[in-house]
């Protein structure tokens, strides 16, 4: 069965420091990969996606992620975080063979940016 593991439930970091949020997935078939951000009491906003092509993808708000097929990872990075980046971050996969578009989400990582 397919699954998504976000290795850190909480990541505290100081403002202007770099951050990496880790995501690993388990699938025997091709996948599409996504990162969503959720601010308190809000819905999910798409940060970036990997569908094909370059394994380094850039998203909104200065975030980027790298797809590593051999390590089945899709870690999210930002070189310098702001207080406003404090939120919950979800990694998600969609099977390449899916005929429903179903997203399978990780458990989420809470990014806490401190002044």
């Amino acid at each position, binding site marked *: 069965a397919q699954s*998504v593991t976000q290795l850190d439930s909480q990541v505290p970091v100081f403002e202007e420091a770099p951050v990496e949020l880790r995501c690993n997935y388990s699938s025997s078939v091709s996948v*599409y990969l996504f990162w*969503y951000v959720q601010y308190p*009491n*809000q*819905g*999910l*906003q*798409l940060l970036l*996606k990997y569908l094909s092509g370059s394994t380094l993808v850039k998203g909104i708000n200065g975030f980027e992620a790298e797809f590593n097929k051999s390590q089945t990872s899709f870690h999210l990075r930002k070189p310098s975080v702001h207080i406003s980046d404090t939120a919950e971050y*979800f990694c998600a996969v*969609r099977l390449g063979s*899916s*005929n*429903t*578009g*179903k*997203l399978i*989400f*990780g*458990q*989420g990582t809470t990014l806490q940016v401190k002044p």
Partner: protein
Amino acid sequence: DAMVIQNPRYQVTQFGKPVTLSCSQTLNHNVMYWYQQKSSQAPKLLFHYYDKDFNNEADTPDNFQSRRPNTSFCFLDIRSPGLGDAAMYLCATSREKNGIQYFGAGTRLSVL
């Protein structure tokens, strides 16, 4: 401007009292999804509509139903809410089944 709109943002219901959550979209997307997100957990797909075709996830309880009267609107009906149904309910849309999903702000349901 919000493209996927969920009403209400907060809903309180009583144990066993039917409740309906609403989702509307201005994107004219073919697919509409309902996810349940319990506290500190990942969103979990309940079901989706592709146009008028309803697709239920195998582990979605019978207590949860959905209606899509037209392209723009989709409703989530909980026939007899239990305490365990308290959660954030997220609606999402996509143009096609494998398209990017756009989420609404969610409805937080409390069951007393």
